[in-house]
């Protein structure tokens, strides 16, 4: 499919120069075109049973997240309880895919979630800036994995990427992937700092070539987080990577997705860009904290026909 992808993928990563040549040989992104396409998909009108399907799917793909300096074991336990019983009055409500916490709270989360299917994801590698030595980053990952994290959300070295030192970024992802063991690796591109859609596409390919299981938009800690056009570009990248290699990589949109309306727009983007195969927690996630309650309120409105208000969902 992608004419610039060689028959032997190892060629692409054989040297710094080969990697740069490949990444810069990827088809460009037209900024206006990408924004127009994302906006057009945002006008899909999702009603009735389609909306019910989308709300349940959105619930199932959430990485329910708390990443504050002030996080406590109590807060994490409350979040885990919320994940296990999102809507106590509607036991058929889908649970979120994972709880996402800092590494030092992974053990707490594992214990609170017990043997349920809800995964524990942890941000590692000196999240959110990533400005630490590789040894420190790997130790960070090792701690989270040792305490039982199923998924690791790593940040890339944006400084190295913007300086064109792609090989360094690549090697770091490879090393973190090795340190993950059986844990799934989500690679955070921090697209708000990459500045251009071309960079987003290159960083997505770089992460996928290095073994990422997911590419993720943002840490949620910078001014611009997930946007529909950025997510569109990443979905195009995973779609093209699958066509070229046969391997499916997931996409996680994180930061700033707070309403059901927004979440549904992202699901439409996934559906019409990467395709229906990606509409599963294995291949698409939304990193959020506030979104869950809005979905619960909309879900109840759809079921009962009336809107019950924020006091009818739990605050944490």
């Amino acid at each position, binding site marked *: *499919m*992608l*004419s610039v992808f060689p028959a032997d993928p190892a060629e692409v990563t054989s040297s710094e120069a080969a990697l740069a040549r490949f990444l810069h040989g990827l*088809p*460009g*992104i*037209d900024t*206006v*075109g*990408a924004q*127009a*396409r994302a906006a057009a998909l945002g*006008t*899909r*009108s*999702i*009603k*009735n*049973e*389609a*909306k019910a*399907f*989308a709300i*349940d*799917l959105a*619930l*199932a793909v959430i990485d329910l997240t708390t990443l504050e300096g002030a996080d406590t074991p109590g807060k994490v336990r409350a979040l885990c309880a919320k994940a296990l019983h999102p809507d106590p009055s509607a036991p*058929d409500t*889908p649970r979120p895919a994972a709880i996402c916490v800092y590494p030092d709270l992974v053990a707490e989360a594992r214990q609170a979630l017990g043997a349920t299917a809800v995964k524990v994801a942890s941000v590692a590698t000196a999240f959110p800036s990533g400005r630490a030595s590789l040894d420190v980053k790997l130790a960070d990952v090792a701690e989270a994995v040792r305490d039982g994290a199923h998924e690791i959300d790593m940040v890339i070295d944006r400084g190295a990427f913007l300086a064109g030192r792609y090989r360094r970024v690549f090697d770091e992802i490879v090393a973190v992937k090795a340190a993950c063991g059986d844990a799934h690796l989500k690679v955070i591109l921090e697209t708000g700092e990459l500045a251009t859609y071309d960079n987003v596409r290159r960083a997505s390919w770089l992460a996928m070539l290095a073994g990422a299981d997911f590419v993720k938009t943002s840490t949620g800690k910078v001014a611009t987080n997930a946007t529909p056009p950025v997510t569109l570009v990443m979905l*195009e990248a995973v779609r093209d990577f699958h066509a070229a290699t046969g391997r499916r990589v997931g996409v996680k949109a994180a930061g700033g997705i707070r309403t059901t309306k927004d979440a549904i727009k992202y*699901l*439409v983007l996934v*559906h*019409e860009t990467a395709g*229906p*195969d990606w*509409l*599963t*927690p*294995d291949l698409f996630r939304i990193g959020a904290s506030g979104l869950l309650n809005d979905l619960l309120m909309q879900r109840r409105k759809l079921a009962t026909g009336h809107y019950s208000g924020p006091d009818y969902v739990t605050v944490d």
Partner: protein
Amino acid sequence: MTTPGRAFAYAPAPESRSAADIAPSYGLFVDGRFAEAADGATLKTVNPATEEVLSEVAVGGEADVDRAVKAARKAFKAWSALPGAERAKYLFRIARLIQEHARELAVLETLDNGKPIRESRDVDLPLVAAHFFHHAGWADKLAYAGFGPNPRPLGVAGQVIPWNFPLLMLAWKIAPALATGNTVVLKPAETTPLTALRFAEICVEAGLPPGVVNIVTGAGATGRAVVAHPDVDKIAFTGSTPVGKEIIRTVAGTGRRLTLELGGKAANIVYDDAALDSAIEGIVNGVFFNQGQVCCAGSRLLVQESVADEVVAMLTRRLGTLRLGDPLDKNTDIGAINSAAQLDRVKALAAAGDDEGAERWTAPCAIPAKGFWFPPTVFTGVTQAHRIAREEIFGPVLSVLTFRTPAEAVEKANNTPYGLSAGVWTEKGAKALWTAQRLRAGVVWTNTFNRFDPASPFGGFKESGFGREGGRHGLGAYLNV
């Protein structure tokens, strides 16, 4: 509980049909009033998506056209004498009323024409309002438009418009005519008269003096009567090239002004260094917008050989996601073909593609049982010698040709009797400009397609007609300069 990976089927999301109030019958709008045709003749207008009869409209004969021209002539004196700022007030009022009635007009347009509501709502209506706003702004500034200190209107404009963008073409014709002080006799298309008649009511609501705008519905004979009327000072026509030629013969030697916006067979050139994902969107928008019933449609895809397979694969995958069906559904991408006759023409030309040995690919769309439908279709292996590469199909049919060098792309793009529009897709600015300068087309879009703005002149070369609509150039066509 959600089943992962299950198809995300969009439930129907229909716009309310009741937003548009359709009368069982309509008369001609002449001298500020509706009246039946002198001989009582009528025609039926149908919804092309369902074949349901929507309404009955009068068919204007020569006597009716004459009455309309006389009314326009009478109104011209006072209208042209108004200060530009006064005319602007009426145009602004019409523009605002169009915005206020946008939903209703979009539904009406979709019912009568078959185009998807997302296009009539998001493209047609905003542009219609924009054209009236833009020209309202010009009405009091004509002395500064570069036509001399006191440009004068021509008089009565006879305007004949097509069925593909009924209200937008009306706006393109009426807004500049009124802004420059002319009065109008407009004949909408036989199959899509309803929004023009609703527009007539809006003119009344806006308090426009009687006779300034006259709408005479009917078919070919009515149009011929408008064109042939000796007291019309300017003819503006948008439609097919054969009819355009007939009009030239009628008008020749009479000294009347003429602008023609005719057919097209636009080349959409995709270089191998293009932003391919956006190019795919541009190709889709270029030829499947309004079911391909667009005179400037990018119906010939000229793709560089080195990426041809990739582009065709990307394109067919993308076309698989297009949703064909009820035009009133807000999620519909492809609506109905405007009429049974038009559907027959599209089918015949597509069959010619098969006969000539091109390879046909059809998007996997379910076709509704009733109405006029043609699924998005792509022909590969097309050469310049094929009919589907030369003749305007005016339907959702794309012909894919390849080229190896920029010079070859330009040569093939220009090798057509038409010259209305073209597209260039490349990330290299110099190459885009080099190509655009050599393309003989009235509009060349770079890294986009089918984009319109009232400030930008639109019109053709060669058999695509002459004269420009929109922008400063469009004003000149309605002024004695």
